[in-house]
């Protein structure tokens, strides 16, 4: 029971993935409890600084999920998210943030099973990677420096 | 995905089939397309779909009947069933497994002893020579199955048309072959 239980934050869009996760519930498909969801109107709204915030505040992994390409409730929000993610990903990588801790995926309102699958695979993946202490350490040191 | 989670060991015959061949008997919904297409279903005491059903019931009596059935020995592994099964239930490997199990438990069907003794004779021929020695095989088979007169009509013609070798072909590295036998089938038979 003292196995490492990662904290994973999921940023999802209201129309596809949030509804998809609801369907997972309605169909009683079990998945790892490590993931907690924060609801956004659209992946287009997701400000990627949140990722760093989450890591700094103790998240070990992050899921970002919205509508499939072409299915966005707002026509193009998910495309903008995708495009920004492309850029941001390389930047994080460059900054030494472990991008393998971030899952970026599409889950539609009809894909309850898929949501469970994504959660489980992500959690398993993070369990292998272990807790993300070194990032938190780094950040805290910085803050100390700034304060000192 | 879901069945990964339960680790309960299933000791039913269906359970063993699942474990050794990955075939899930419960998947069969008894449409009978396999039995309809099976070329030997009329020689079988239980056509393929019935075998599936008997595995589904999980009743030891049914499992007994399966292992003692003619069906598993008549199966030609012609693969017609899987080629047409709407649920992709892979019957041929399952039949292979059931035959093995049937022999292990000494339940091989008597009426099918010809088939079995033929297979055994066949393997022995390989065990000795590394290859199939057809004349030897036929003779050996006759002895085992006590069907001395069968096929006597064609043997002469076969010789005349020189379709049978009088002498067996021997391969050089017969040691190797023997090993293979010892490490596989012989071992299995000890463990039973």
């Amino acid at each position, binding site marked *: 029971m003292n196995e490492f239980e990662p904290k994973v934050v999921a940023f999802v869009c209201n129309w596809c993935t949030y509804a998809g996760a609801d369907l997972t519930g309605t169909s009683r498909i079990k998945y790892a409890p490590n993931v907690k969801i924060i609801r956004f109107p659209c992946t287009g709204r997701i400000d990627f600084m949140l990722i760093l915030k989450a890591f700094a505040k103790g998240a070990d992994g992050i899921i970002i999920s919205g509508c499939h390409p072409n299915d966005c409730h707002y026509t193009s929000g998910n495309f903008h998210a995708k495009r920004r993610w492309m850029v941001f990903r390389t930047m994080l990588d460059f900054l030494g943030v472990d991008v393998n801790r971030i899952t970026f995926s599409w889950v539609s309102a009809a894909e309850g099973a898929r949501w469970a699958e994504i959660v489980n695979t992500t959690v398993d993946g993070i369990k292998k990677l272990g807790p993300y202490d070194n990032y938190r350490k780094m950040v805290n040191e910085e803050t100390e420096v700034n304060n000192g | 995905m879901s069945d990964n989670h339960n680790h309960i060991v299933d000791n039913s015959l269906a359970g063993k089939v699942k474990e050794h061949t990955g075939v899930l008997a419960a998947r069969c919904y008894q449409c009978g397309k396999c039995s309809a297409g099976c*070329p*030997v279903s009329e*020689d079988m005491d239980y056509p393929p779909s019935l075998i599936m059903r008997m595995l589904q019931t999980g009743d030891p009596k049914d499992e007994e009947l399966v292992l003692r059935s003619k069906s598993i*020995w*008549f199966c*030609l*592994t*012609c*693969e*017609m069933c*899987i*080629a047409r099964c709407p649920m992709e239930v892979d019957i*041929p490997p399952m039949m*292979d*497994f059931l*035959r*093995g199990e049937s*022999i292990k438990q000494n339940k091989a069907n008597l009426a099918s002893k*010809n*088939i079995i*003794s*033929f*297979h*055994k004779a*066949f*393997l022995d*021929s*390989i065990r000795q020579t*590394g*290859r*199939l020695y*057809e004349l030897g*095989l*036929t003779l050996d*088979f006759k002895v085992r*199955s006590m069907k001395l007169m*069968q*096929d006597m*009509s*064609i043997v002469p*013609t*076969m010789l005349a*048309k*020189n*379709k*049978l*070798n009088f002498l067996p*072909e021997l*391969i*050089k*590295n017969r040691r*190797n*072959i023997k*090993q*293979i*036998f010892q*490490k*596989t*089938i012989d071992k*299995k038979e000890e463990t039973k």
Partner: protein
Amino acid sequence: MKLGFYPGCSLEGMSREYSDSVVALAKRFDIELVQIPDWNCCGATAAHNLNKELSLSLPARNLALAEKEGFTDVVVPCAACYSRFSTTHHELMHNHDLRHRINEVMEMEYKGTINTLNVIQFIDKYIIDKIEEKIVNKFNYKAACYYGCLLVRPNNILGFDRTEDPQTMDVVMRKIGADSIDWAFKTECCGAGLSVSATNTVARLSGKIVDDAEHRGAEVIIVACPMCHSNLDMRRSEINKYLGKKVTTPVIYITQALGLAVGISEKELGFNRHFVPVNFPKKAEIEKKAEVKTQIEEVNNG
């Protein structure tokens, strides 16, 4: 050009005419078929009926030997052997633990570089394009191409032609002038391994096949598997007993048909070894037929 060659036991014994015709045909196209040194029996149906590991080890040994010889393409004319080889290769490639186990059993290593070709694939790959210019006399008969089970099933492993109503053989036969008929028992099983042990069953299954071919006016049945051949040919007396009539439609190997077309002698092709006599009309007639046919074609085209 040299290619690996695995005759298998029946081609050494009962069906050596098949082996002869394959080799002779290959020679015509300057291909030397080199036997895998010290090859052993693949175990056929018997092995996998009784023991799985054995049924994989026996073919695996041959694959390993072939690999050692540095072959890539290995021609395996016997459909049963072909099926065992392909299945073994597939299983070992998709299951590493199993591969290690088998390697350990046969004390050899199979890496998985061998590409097994059945006779039709061989023809398709090395012969078909060059055949036209070599045709001496057109093989213009009504032919029923019989595939049996082991060439087309299981499709997910063999991936050769489609399981229902396959066509590759028919295409080849048309190339040499045959009129390949559409019939219903192309892929029905002949009884295969039960030939000796359950003769009645074989008589029935093969009977249906022979009957349908004859019924649709086939002058010859074309096969690519020694087991199919022995059941349809050697067992003809039982078959006729079952059908209650005398069916004389001969059964020949596809390589024999091609052999005839490119002018290899009937003797060389070993027709004399068949139980059901193979007596085609004399060459002259064939040629006449051919001329007429070509004339007609010209008329049609012009």
